[in-house]
Structure formats: C-alpha cells, structure tokens
C-alpha cells in the first residue's frame, strides 16, 4: 500500500465471505442491451454502492437483485441459495425507495409492522419490535402519526425501519436520499451508514451522487452503459481510476491532450511532461504506451505543487490566473497555460494559499503537476 487507505478503516465490519453473487447477469430490452454480463460478489456485511450516470443500468441491476425485474440471462445466489428465478416474495431482502413508498393511510407503527403482521407474530411482540425499530431510527414518539405528518427525512427513516423490521439478510436502497434537501441528505447519510455498520447488514445502495458514494461505501461499483467500469474502495476509485470514464465521473479532473514519448514521458503542446513510478512500491498508472501514440493525461485540480518549487521539480509550468471559483475554504482557479495548449487548467488552492501566493485574476504563477499523480488513458 502506498499510503493509508482511509476507506479501509470503514470496512472493518465487512468480512470476505460472499453474501450475494451475480454471475453473467444480462438484461436486454428488445435489441437494446441495458446490462451486459455483470459478474459481482457482494461481501457479507459490506455497504456496496452502485454509482453511475442516469441510464447506466444501476437501478435495473438493483431491481433484478430484488426480483422486481427478471434478467435475460445469468444467475444470482444469496448465501449459497440460487435465487435467480424466485419471485420477490421468496427472496430475503428489505428495500427502500427514493419515494419512501410509505402507505399513506396507515400510521407509522402500522407501516413498520406491515411485514410483521403476516408472520403470525404475537401482538405484544410486534409492538415491542416496532418500538425497538422506531428507537433505532430515532423516532420513538412518532408511532401514532401518519406519514404526511412527517418530514421527508423522517419518512425515509420510517421506510428504513419498515424494511429492517423482518431482519432481512440484505438491504437494498434505491436512491434513498435523492428526494431530500441538502442538509437532511447529509444527516441521513451518516445515520444510514452507522445503522448499517451497527446491524452489520449487507447493503446495496444505488446513487448517482458521487459524494454520497465516496462517503458511505465500503466498496463502489462504478457503472457506465450497462457495464461495470471499476470495483474498489472509495479511495481506490478516486486515486486509481481504472478508466477515463471513472476518472472523469468521480471527482474533478483536467484532461490534457498528449503524445507518448516512451519511458513514461509525454509531449503535450510544445513541451514534455514526465511521470514517475510511485517511490514506495514502484506502481504506476502511466501505463506503457508506444512512442507516438495519442493519449490523454488526467490531472486532478489538487495534484499540483505550488510552493517550494526548485529547478529540480519536474513538470513545471507557468500559467496566467483567470476565473476564480470561490468555494469557501478552497478555491478553484482557471489557468491559461500557453505551453500545454488551449484548454485552461483548473487548479485547486486553499483560501490561505490564495492569499499567501497572491493569486488574483491576471497574475502569472509558476506551479508543477505532480509526476506521481498524473493518470494516462488512451485517446
């Protein structure tokens, strides 16, 4: 490991045992292929997040796992049991939707107890379980209220309690936070995550919000056009994107046109840029490109050196500061770097650096692109 994988700390709760396994799952709508050959193993107790733009097939995949849609081909097994062709009633999961889907004419307690009643549980037992669940989601006094009397975030907590009532082995969350306002979203994000870890329930969440995914997941499955682009911890996904799509979709990135010169050197515009291997483990995301082949260099706004630059610092450039995007503690500054071509580079500074380096529109600044952080993908 080149450095601490922060997200690895979060995944303590997840074991290596497989809770759910998808093999060659495919979904065609007529001649259109919505999902192509998905192979995936979900570990016991982990929080797995399907992340991708709308239409990438993430929701379809979740609905196939839930049995709400059937796959064209492929198999699914849960804890060793083949559930590929079972109707939803015979699978073992709880589900939470973006729209909450609470029954409007039933009270909160009746909603939560909805799945318990069918199981011939004693009334007192049901009531105790409902109370326990409501306490778990932090709404112990709402039992007698109707859903319309609760805020969106509260309703989603009830939906979560209802889904967990029967203690399913698998929890499916279909964009559970998308309908909430920004503050509520962040609060519920933490709550769901800590609840999930506390209960140790294997969870699959679908989202299009990368911040949500990076923040909550043990592992992220990045999807695009019905295929999996990359599976990894949030940090792996961010720091070592496996494809140009992932690099562009997760986090901000500058894309620079370049030509390979061999030996991890590239030419962009009228100057050369160099990549170096990781000094610790010798790994490199630069790949081996034949000299002369067209490539794209991906540089994140924060992967730059702005202070203490010496003549020995590689990949130095001079840019003219342009538009400044003020984001509070950090700022994004657009630089025109003549030597790298016409596309401006977006570089990130802390607010303090903005003052220290006196960065205002129009000034010329010397900075270097970090040779160990540049990613290279074919053009």
């Amino acid at each position, binding site marked *: 490991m080149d450095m601490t994988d922060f997200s690895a700390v979060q995944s303590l709760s997840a074991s290596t045992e497989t809770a759910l396994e998808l093999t060659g799952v495919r979904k065609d709508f007529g001649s259109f292929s919505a999902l192509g050959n998905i192979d995936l193993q979900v570990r016991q107790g982990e929080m797995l997040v399907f992340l991708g733009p709308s239409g990438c097939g993430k929701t379809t995949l979740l609905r196939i796992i839930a049995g709400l849609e059937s796959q064209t081909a492929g*198999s699914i097994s849960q804890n060793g049991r*083949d559930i590929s062709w079972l109707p939803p*009633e015979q699978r073992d999961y*709880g589900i939470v939707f973006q729209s909450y*889907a609470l029954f409007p004419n039933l009270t909160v307690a009746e909603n939560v107890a909805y799945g318990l009643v069918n199981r011939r549980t004693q009334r007192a037992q049901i009531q105790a379980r409902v109370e326990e669940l409501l306490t778990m989601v932090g709404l112990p006094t709402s039992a007698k209220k109707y859903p319309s009397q609760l805020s969106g975030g509260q309703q989603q907590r009830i939906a979560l309690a209802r889904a967990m009532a029967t203690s*399913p082995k698998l929890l499916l969350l279909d964009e559970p936070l998308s309908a909430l306002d920004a503050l509520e979203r962040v609060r519920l994000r933490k709550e769901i995550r800590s609840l999930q870890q506390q209960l140790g329930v294997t969870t699959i969440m679908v989202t299009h919000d990368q911040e949500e995914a990076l923040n909550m997941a043990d592992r992220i499955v990045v999807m695009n056009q019905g295929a999996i682009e990359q599976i990894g911890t949030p940090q792996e996904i961010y720091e070592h994107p496996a494809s140009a799509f992932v690099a562009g979709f997760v986090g901000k990135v500058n894309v620079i046109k370049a030509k390979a010169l061999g030996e991890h050197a590239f030419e962009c515009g009228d100057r050369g840029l160099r990549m170096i291997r990781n000094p610790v483990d010798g790994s490199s995301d630069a790949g081996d490109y034949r000299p002369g082949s067209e490539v794209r260099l991906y540089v994140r706004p924060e992967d730059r050196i702005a202070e203490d630059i010496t003549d020995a610092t590689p990949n130095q450039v001079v840019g003219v500061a342009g538009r400044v995007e003020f984001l509070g503690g950090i700022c994004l500054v657009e630089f025109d770097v003549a030597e790298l071509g016409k596309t401006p580079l977006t570089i990130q500074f802390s607010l303090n650096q903005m003052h220290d380096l006196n960065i205002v529109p129009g000034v010329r600044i010397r900075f270097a692109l970090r040779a160990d952080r540049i990613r290279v993908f074919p053009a």
Partner: protein
Amino acid sequence: MQASSKLNPVLLTSTRRSLKLSGGDILARVLLVAVAGGLALFLLAPLATILLRGVLDNNGNFVGLMHFRDYLATPSLKRSILNSCSVAFAVVFISVPMAFFFAYAINRSCMRFKGGFKFIALLPLLAPSLLSAIAFIQWFGNQGVLKPLLGGASIYGAPGIILAEVYNTFPHAMMIITTALSLADARLYEAADSMGTGTLRRFFTITLPSCKYGLISAATVVFTYVISDFGAPKVIGGNFSVLSVDVFKQVVGQQNFGRGAVVGVLLLLPSILSFAIDSLVRRKLQAQLSARSVPYKPKPQSAFDRWMTVYCVLVSILLLSVVGMAIFSSFIKLWPYNLELTWRHYQYALLDGDLSAAYTNSLKLGFLTAVFGTTAAFTGAYLTEKSRGLGSLRPLVHLMAMLSMAVPGLVLGLGYIMFFNHPDNPLKFLYASMSILVFSTIIHYYTSSHLTAVSALKALDNEFEAVAASLKIPFYKTFLRVTVPVCLPALLDIARYYFVVSMATLSCVVFLYSPDTILSSVAIMNLDEAGDIGPAAALASLTVVTSALVCLLYGWFSKALINKTQAWRTCTMH
C-alpha cells in the same frame, strides 16, 4: 434443471426464462385474464356479431357488402346519414361555445354562486335524454306555450332535436372544458401581464391555445353523443329520419336484423372516428396535465364578473326551464286545457303495477351496476396498472376499456340481442334477464369508470407493490388494506356515476328489456308514444329527483366516510 443450467451457462442464455410465480402472481394473472375475458365476451363478441351479421344474409350465407349497397341505394335512408350528421354538427356549434363561456365564467371570473351554477349545469345528466325532448314539446309543440314564437315553423324535426341535444350535451362539454381551463398555467398570464398584453390578445394567444385540446375533445364527445342518441329524436324527431331511430325501426318495427346491423355499423363509423380523434387529443391533454404548472387564480374585475354572472344566469334559466317544464307538466291535469295541479300522474306512476315495476327495476339496475361495475372497473384498472406479468394482455384490456366509449348504446344493445339470443349460445339464459341489463350498462359506461380508476391509481406510489412483495405480503392484502382505502373517493365517484347513468340510460337497454325487467326510461318512451305526457313527465321527474337525491346522499355519505377513514389526508406536518 437449475444445477445443469449453472454448469452450462450457454443453455441458460439460449432459453428465455421468467421468474417463478408466487401464489399472488397466479391469482393476479387469473383475475386479469378474467377481466380481459369479460370485456371480450360482453364487448368484443357482440360487436363482432354485428359486423358479421352485416355481411351475411338471413340464411347465414356470405353476401359481402350487399346490405350496405342496398341501404345506400335507398334515398330515404341515405338522407338519415345526412340528417344525423348535420344535426350533430349544429349541436356541436351551439353546445360547445355555450359550454365554453359557462366554463370560462366558472374558472376565470370571481362571480358568486359558482357552486349553484355548476349544479344547474350538471342537471341534464340526471335525466333520460327523453326528458328534454318532452319538455321542448311542451314549450314549442303543437299545443306549446311558446309556439307562436316559431312563426308557423314546427319544432318536430331538426329544430327540436337540436334544442334537446344542446340541453343534453351541455354538461358533457362543460365538464371537459372546465378541466382543460383549470390546467392553465398562471405563470403564462403573469408573464403576459408583465409585458402589458391586452385582454383580448391574452385570450387569443394564451387561453384559447391552452384549452384547444379540451375544445376538440368536447366537440367529438358532443358529436358522438348526438349521432348515437336515440331518446330525443324518437320523441321530437317527427318525420325527420336519423340513423339511431332507423336502427330502432328496423329492429323493433320490422324485425329486420340484417338491415339493423348495417345501420349499426354505419352508426359505429363516426363514433370510432371521433373516438380516435378524442383519444389522440386526450393524450396531449394528459401531457399538459403532468407538466408542472402553477394553477391560475382569477382576480375580481367587477364589470367582467357582472357580465359573466348575467350570462350564467341566462343559461341557467334556459336549462331550468327545460327540467322545470318537465316537472311542471307532471303536476298538470291535462296540458294545455286543464292547468289544475294534481298528484294524479305520480299516483299513476307509483301505483300502476307496470310503471312502479319500471321505477323499481331502474333503481335495482342502478344499485347493481354501481356495485358490480365499480368492482369490475376498479379491479380491472388495478390489475392492468399494478400487477406483474402478462405484459401483452395489459394494453389489450386497456384498449377494450377505451373502446366501449366508442360503441353507441344502440349498437351495443343490438349486438347483445344477436350474440346472446343466438340459439347456439350457451349464455342464452342471460337474455331478457336483469343480468344482461347490468352487464350491458356496465360495459357501455366502462370507459369513464376505468379512466377514473386509472388516474386514481396512477396517483399512488408505484412502489407499494414492490415494498409489499419484499415484506412477503400477498398483493391482495395490500390491495384491500392500502389501495382500496386510499382510492375510496374515486371508488365512490365511480359508483355514483354508474348509478346515475343507469337510471337514465335508454339506448343501450331498449332492445334488451323484457316485460319483467322494463326500466323507467323505456316506460317513459312508451308513455310518450301513447300520448300520456303527464305520467311520462312524472316518471322522468321522479328519475331526476331520485338521482339528485342519491347524489346529495352520496355527497353527505362520502364526506362522513372520508372524514372517518381518511384522517391521514387532512393531517399535515406540525
């Protein structure tokens, strides 16, 4: 099987599989097939029989379009087509603008008594279409009070039909246009105001275009209504022949079923055409509906509001003078010679065995259609909207549900005689029973009920069924515990609709009643034919009053029930 498919993924991909069915899935499929089968049996089969009968001779030999050629070669019958169409066009051009301004007043002005005006405008729905014709005869007929106003012209014929049908179609047009007007986006008006747009320009550039589809839809509904209505032309048409009365004469008068089938098919054509236009337009209306818009709220403008009130008062007087004349006639000894008030006609209507039987039969029909029609329409809509599987059957059920609107009642009734009275039909026992009246009425008014149910169901969260399935609750439990209670207001609306239309329906049942199951609308027709205007008016008034009472009762009952069961609706966040 599963083990081998695991070993051999190629096998798996080569065979299309679907999920195993749960018990609930099987039940849902059986019910959906039952709904589809019911619609096929009681709508498609009778229709197909008519179409078939049109190309066969009396001995069952195929004769192609011979009947049609014969029919079109008869000048008097060719005239019927022309008459039907010209009358229908005339009614469209009077009824739709009249209804438009009425709806405009209700939607866009701040006049008072809107509720009262709306109630009066809807009154024509409560009566059989015969009532208006009888009332216009009392006003303008040979012994009419206002006959001198006609200056020697006769009300019998086109003028009478047009007047009666304008009255009958007014509420239909008004309801559709009101819906269209209520969809207006207030922001468009605010934008226009901020640019200083004049009132007239605003009306022509925003108001009219935004309810264009509503107007087209209203026009087609009115046109179809007039073409297929049978009550009014039968009573006031005189010698002016129209298609619908032709069918009746051919079948009941001459027992010529082949000819009847031919006219029935001809009657079906304009209906199918306007149905096609209407469903096309409705789709656009739906798109408008789902778009996000801010509802328009009118501001008081004293002059405009006053003129609108004057207009609505005038129209209301006209409408009330029709139903009022019918009620008045029912209390008069012998029009116009003896104007003494009397209960005699009501005594006759309620004590005479046949007439009181007709009235109770109508009540029975109303009650049975309300119960079974509502159940069928709502269950059918639920299964098509919310259940899984049988993908190809769903659009078919929906199509059949929509088709029922396009079939004129006379044509449906004729199809029922031909289909259910066929010696080889095992369902022949239904013929001449109360059941067949119930079935035909349910089918005849299925479209509106289905659409009401569908739109109520569409307002529910799509994932209720998915959540219930994940909690291992069978669908029917969720249906009874959540779907039905939440949709209760819509269910009550459908039931009331079925009751009211069953009380008034004539065209669909006129071929199907037996002496034991005679209905009040049919009895009114027979009384009118015999010249017994008093009792006819009494029975018609009784129908109107019954329906009005039932509507009031429904309103009161559903309010109480909704208050009791829909507490969740009124609760908001504190």
